[in-house]
């Protein structure tokens, strides 16, 4: 049975020429070779390394540092610096994570204990499941013509979890925060789905690999810039980036739904927004920026398109967190009004543009 499984893993393995000597050396050792070939099996590699968990963690650690640093620079401060002066405090998020790990996790008396403890762990489900359908070049787990709707549906589960977290916390600010999350969810979700459907209409397919193939010559942003703007705003709203950082407004409701969490539990729920940002930025770069199209780096092999996708995603995330330095926070009613007027009309216009492009047959 081992041999059969090995056959299956080796038949669909990620090839990285630069690491090939190490892989060959590990292949000589019994049992280790099974683990290595299992990890290099493309479906698992997609979820665990790129574009999945490992890339997500790297992007998140970098982007949290970058957010604090760039905000500090614009506000004439220094930001994280002391923990590694030569790197400009780059390992500060890692140090924070370590500190969270050793802090006590307090479950307060009023909380709904089972849900309160298990929901932060369950939140990994809607965050990691979309990686099954997000390809990075040749690395993908499942190729299906329904990839885009599935991803959007799974990402839409995150607000449900946040609302549940707020409910299980059973406290005043958590209640206010989850109510705000619900209202924001109503504000952006329709526009998000309309924009995504516009892109599906424009490309004539919901298969992400096909969509990237169609952007070989020109990125999609040039065909439908209105959809791009609408998707950018929707992402800022969906991940509570700054002009719409309403559910977690720390000056008003003190991290809203996450207020009662301590220790590593807080670390997990706090990064939920960043994970969602990573997912939506991945979608953004695939839909509008040509995904993993880019010059091939021969020594990286299969990892080269994944690297291009990762770089585009991180640059996008940097743009999103940069908004924090410039914008103040909207009121809840202003944000919802914005969602139901500007965003919705922009997304409907982008749908019309996509229909025109489809009818003329430019793509």
């Amino acid at each position: 049975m081992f041999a059969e499984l090995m056959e299956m893993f080796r038949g669909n393995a990620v090839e990285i020429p630069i690491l090939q000597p190490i892989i060959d050396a590990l292949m000589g050792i019994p049992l280790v070779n099974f683990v290595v070939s299992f990890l290099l099996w493309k479906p698992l590699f997609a979820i665990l390394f790129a574009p999945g968990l490992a890339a997500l963690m790297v992007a998140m650690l970098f982007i949290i540092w970058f957010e604090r640093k760039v905000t500090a620079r614009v506000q004439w401060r220094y930001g994280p610096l002391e923990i590694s002066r030569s790197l400009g405090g780059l390992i500060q998020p890692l140090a924070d994570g370590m500190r969270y790990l050793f802090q006590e996790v307090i479950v307060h008396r009023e909380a709904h204990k089972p849900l309160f403890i298990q929901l932060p762990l369950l939140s990994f489900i809607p965050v990691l499941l979309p990686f099954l359908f997000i390809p990075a070049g040749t690395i993908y787990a499942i190729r299906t013509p329904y990839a885009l709707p599935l991803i959007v549906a799974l990402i839409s589960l995150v607000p449900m979890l946040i609302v549940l977290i707020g409910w299980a916390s059973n406290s005043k600010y958590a209640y206010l925060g989850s109510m705000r999350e619900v209202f924001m969810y109503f504000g952006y979700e329709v526009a998000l789905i309309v924009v995504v459907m516009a892109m599906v209409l424009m490309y004539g397919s919901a298969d992400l690999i096909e969509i990237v193939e169609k952007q070989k010559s020109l990125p999609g942003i040039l065909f439908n810039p209105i959809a791009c703007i609408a998707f950018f705003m929707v992402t800022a709203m969906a991940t509570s980036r700054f002009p719409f950082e309403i559910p977690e407004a720390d000056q008003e409701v003190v991290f809203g739904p996450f207020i009662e969490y301590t220790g590593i539990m807080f670390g997990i729920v706090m990064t939920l927004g960043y994970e969602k940002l990573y997912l939506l930025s991945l979608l953004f770069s695939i839909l509008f920026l040509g995904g993993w199209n880019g010059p091939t780096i021969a020594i990286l092999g299969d990892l080269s398109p994944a690297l291009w996708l990762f770089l585009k995603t991180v640059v996008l995330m940097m743009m999103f967190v940069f908004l924090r330095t410039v914008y103040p926070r909207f009121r809840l009613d202003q944000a919802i009004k914005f969602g139901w007027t500007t965003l919705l009309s922009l997304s409907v216009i982008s749908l019309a543009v996509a229909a025109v492009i489809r009818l003329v047959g430019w793509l």
Partner: protein
Amino acid sequence: MVRVKSPELNFIERMKGHLDALRVGLREAIKPTRLTVQYPRERRKLPDNFRGMLILDVNGCISCFQCAFICPANAIVMKRGPDGKLYPCVNYAKCIFCHFCAETCTKGAWKSTKVMDVAFENEEEMLLTTEKLIKPPKLGREEEKTVSYEIKNGELILVKSDKLDELIPKNE
């Protein structure tokens, strides 16, 4: 009564506002005009005659008690020296660094230093007797740069130099 309305901006003006905000943010992100002095590693250039810790020139002291009289915090007490004259001692638990003593001294026996970040191990040590006062305070300096604020083109900027500030004036 004057009723102030919120300004009605059209689309182009609003977009201009957004772009302006982003431009300022980008400029500051690339080249921040921050004014922070990173204290242990940098030290601000202090003006001359800064009111820091005191040094007593014991040869100039004529035991006139003026410094002890004027001290608003009662930080100066006089103690008898080995030659029978009375000399001042400063209690830094009380001293408010006002330098009235230095100003009132008829002989100019009090000398000022630029040392203002003072630390003692316990309260007894904070009473500096005359023997301790005549020696300059012990320094532990970590800074590599001296920082000063300057106005250039109407904007406040921070100028860093490698030349370290002289905290204790040299004896003439």
